[in-house]
């Protein structure tokens, strides 16, 4: 039982980090129909810029704010320069965003150096709580808490505010939103920037969790993000959370019980979903 709880907490924390990355991705994918492989690049830039701000200021909060601001700015640049010319063309989107992803990763090496950077958990989040044989690592609990808070905020914004309603309506029928007098491109930009900021925020939280940041980590997590979007259902925010938790837990348990399958488990999960329920496992926003 103790082992189960430890593996569960570990998987849940990883799932929440993937959720932060995938939440932006699912909105961008669902609303804008854009395949943004550069999303991982924003994740890694969030990690590096956040850790830079954290080291410079000595405050983890400043680090988080630094990552979010970087995400917003890079999101604006990416949408304006990279995405705008390729709206409506998936092949071009894949090619240009993959290319931009590589540019972002290489730029990390130019700006911060080619070697990985070790990162420590801030002192007030370091250590663990022990309950008999169960060890709860504080930082993991913190990540789980933040994940649920972010989910709650997004649910509130999407369901209770006008901009949230417009975003949900846009996922269902972009043309009709314009007919009602709403500039959908401006909504696209806002969603893209928010999604990018979420990726950067996820990258920043991931840094102390993994203990080291490196330029290539963006691609690894971007793939996980896409898997989550496919499993959860395009455009479904709740689906992203459930799928991210599923992927996190599957990875955690498989790594312990069937380690040689731990890397393949996510792909297997995605393949099963694509065969039996291609629209995704959970509620699809397009259908409500």
């Amino acid at each position: 039982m103790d082992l189960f709880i430890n593996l569960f907490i570990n998987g849940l924390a990883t799932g929440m980090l993937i959720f932060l990355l995938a939440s932006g991705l699912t909105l961008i994918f669902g609303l804008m129909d854009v395949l943004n492989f550069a999303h991982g690049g924003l994740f890694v830039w969030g990690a590096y810029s956040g850790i830079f701000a954290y080291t410079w200021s000595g405050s983890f909060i400043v680090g988080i704010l630094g990552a979010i601001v970087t995400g917003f700015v890079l999101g604006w640049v990416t949408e304006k320069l990279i995405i705008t010319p390729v709206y409506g063309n998936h092949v071009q989107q894949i090619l240009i965003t993959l290319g931009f992803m590589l540019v972002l990763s290489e730029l990390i090496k130019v700006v911060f150096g080619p070697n990985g950077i070790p990162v420590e958990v801030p002192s007030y989040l370091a250590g663990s709580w022990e309950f008999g044989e169960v060890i709860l690592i504080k930082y993991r609990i913190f990540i789980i808490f933040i994940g649920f808070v972010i989910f709650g905020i997004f649910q509130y914004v999407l369901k209770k505010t006008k901009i949230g309603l417009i975003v949900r309506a846009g996922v269902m029928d972009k043309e009709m939103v314009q007919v009602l007098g709403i500039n959908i491109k401006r909504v696209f930009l806002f969603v893209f920037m928010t999604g990018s900021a979420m990726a950067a925020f996820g990258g920043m939280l991931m840094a102390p969790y993994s203990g080291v940041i490196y330029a290539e980590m963006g691609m690894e997590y971007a793939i996980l993000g896409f898997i989550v979007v496919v499993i959860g259902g395009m455009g479904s925010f709740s689906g992203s959370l459930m799928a991210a938790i599923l992927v996190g837990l599957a990875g955690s348990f498989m790594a312990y019980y069937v380690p040689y399958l731990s890397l393949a488990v996510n792909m297997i999960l995605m393949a099963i979903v694509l065969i039996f329920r291609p629209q995704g496992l959970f509620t699809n926003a397009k259908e409500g």
Partner: protein
Amino acid sequence: MMNSLLKLDQLQTHIGQYHILQGIQFEAIEGEVSVLLGRNGAGKTTTLKTIIGLTPASHGKVMFEGQEITKRKTYDIANLGIGYVPEDQGIFKGLTVEENMKVAIRKETDEVCEKQAYILELFPDLKKFWKKAGGHLSGGQKQMLSMARAFVNDSKLLLIDEPSKGLAPIVVEKVMEAITEMKKKTTIILVEQNFIMASRIGDTYTLIDDGKTVHSGSMAELIGDEELKRKYLGIG
């Protein structure tokens, strides 16, 4: 004094390689219901879509309240006061009736709130199913919601595409009554295949054939012209 609200001058529209509209000449007079008539594929729906900017014109002009709107974006045209009710109603299926209305309302002024109350009197079903998802409404209720959304703002002109399509006769009657009521507050351009309905609520007609305007005039004239109805509408 008859004020021209919208004027289409030699309007042409291409969709991909197809030349759909090849010269539409049309004028909507303030306070009237103008009906666009013609066979399937004649270009009626494309005419409405071109007015609202969804299928932009390749040649010709769209004039609204004396200003040219041909090249404007759809949201910009809508904000000028043109509401559009598409053939498929365009309901956001995952949003409730209330949320569909909220998305449509641009500014919650007293005037808009009054208008919403007026619409809910006109369509009591919407009030009844206020918290129900759009996707779970009947065809008639979806039509009512779509019309309500287009009408709730300061809509000077409503473009309504085939409101009777696929509806039971009793529901068609309700929709007709609503359009007759809405006519008192706004100008309407109606695309309608159901000639009986069109002739009852239309003030003027424009016949479209192969993407061109072939005839226009008062509805009373058309009702009496058996030859024209047989030739272009296959009636009689």
